[in-house]
């Protein structure tokens, strides 16, 4: 994969971002998008766990919050990719970065599993204060995984 990372580093975009105030600007927007994503998705996770917003239907919370988490994810990717390209080889070999990518994949799998499997039977537990076990597990996994994404993401810069 190293030739790909080296090719990315040599892109004009990577060089420009790496040598200008675009890096801190994109990074700070990345932080706003990431914390917003985690804060917003926690609302749905806590509903799935039966901890918060129990008087509202799960489907309502999900349909209202997911467009915002999706938008935040787009902003996080659009700001994160240029940051990655500036030192692609370094980041690709950075253990914290590798763990972050793994946790993001697991968070995506958790989300897909919930939407394709657990959510199919939502009519039966949509109004329940404490949803079915599968939904509670999805909520717990989501919270743990996203906290792990923030931790491993913050750790990247501490590994030289």
């Amino acid at each position: 994969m190293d030739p790909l990372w080296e090719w990315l580093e040599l892109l004009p975009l990577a060089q420009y971002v790496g040598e200008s105030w675009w890096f801190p600007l994109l990074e700070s927007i990345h932080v706003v998008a990431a914390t917003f994503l985690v804060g917003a998705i926690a609302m749905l996770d806590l509903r799935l766990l039966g901890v918060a917003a129990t008087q509202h239907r799960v489907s309502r919370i999900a349909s209202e919050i997911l467009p915002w988490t999706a938008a935040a994810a787009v902003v996080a990717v659009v700001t994160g990719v240029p940051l990655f390209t500036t030192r692609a080889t370094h980041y690709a070999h950075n253990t914290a970065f590798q763990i972050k990518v793994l946790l993001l994949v697991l968070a995506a799998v958790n989300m897909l599993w919930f939407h394709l499997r657990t959510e199919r039977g939502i009519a039966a537990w949509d109004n329940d204060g404490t949803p079915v076990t599968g939904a509670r597990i999805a909520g717990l996994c989501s919270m743990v995984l996203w906290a792990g994404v923030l931790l491993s993401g913050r750790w990247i810069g501490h590994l030289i």
Partner: protein
Amino acid sequence: MLEQLASRIDGSALQAGAVYLLSQIRGFPPMIQTVHLLAIAAVMGSIVLIDLRILGLALRGQPTSDLARRLLPWTWWALPFLFVSGIIFVLARPQRYAVNPIFRLKFVLLALAVIVTLALHRVTARNPAYWEGPGGGRVLGRMVAAASLLLWVAVVLAGRWIAYADYLLPSEE
């Protein structure tokens, strides 16, 4: 004033304690910074979402007063976590922060954000129907919500820029 305070912290037991924690416990800095980030996520998922609701952009299925009552405690509870997780770094290197202009800017913005949020909280507590009602509530409420939204996001941006101020704005020394 900030610099005098910093020189009093310099060499104190408080500083020694903070330096010990940050340098001797493996992974302590990123872990504490993640506590800070998770508390910021709580701010984003509470007051920022309430602001978006008042602006009519998000969570329209839930009444603003209901949302504010449920979510504002998350904002207030995040603050002590932000304070403790942040001050450890300040105690360890007080002079670095005392002369950093972005650090000062962050706390001016934070003070304003807290004042606006307190106002929003009090209005909701006194008159839950305020945000839904006709007339003044709409326009004034939206202005307050927009100010709150911009201020909280600006605090987070400024927080991230503290580290870059060291490079972008080199001190006179």
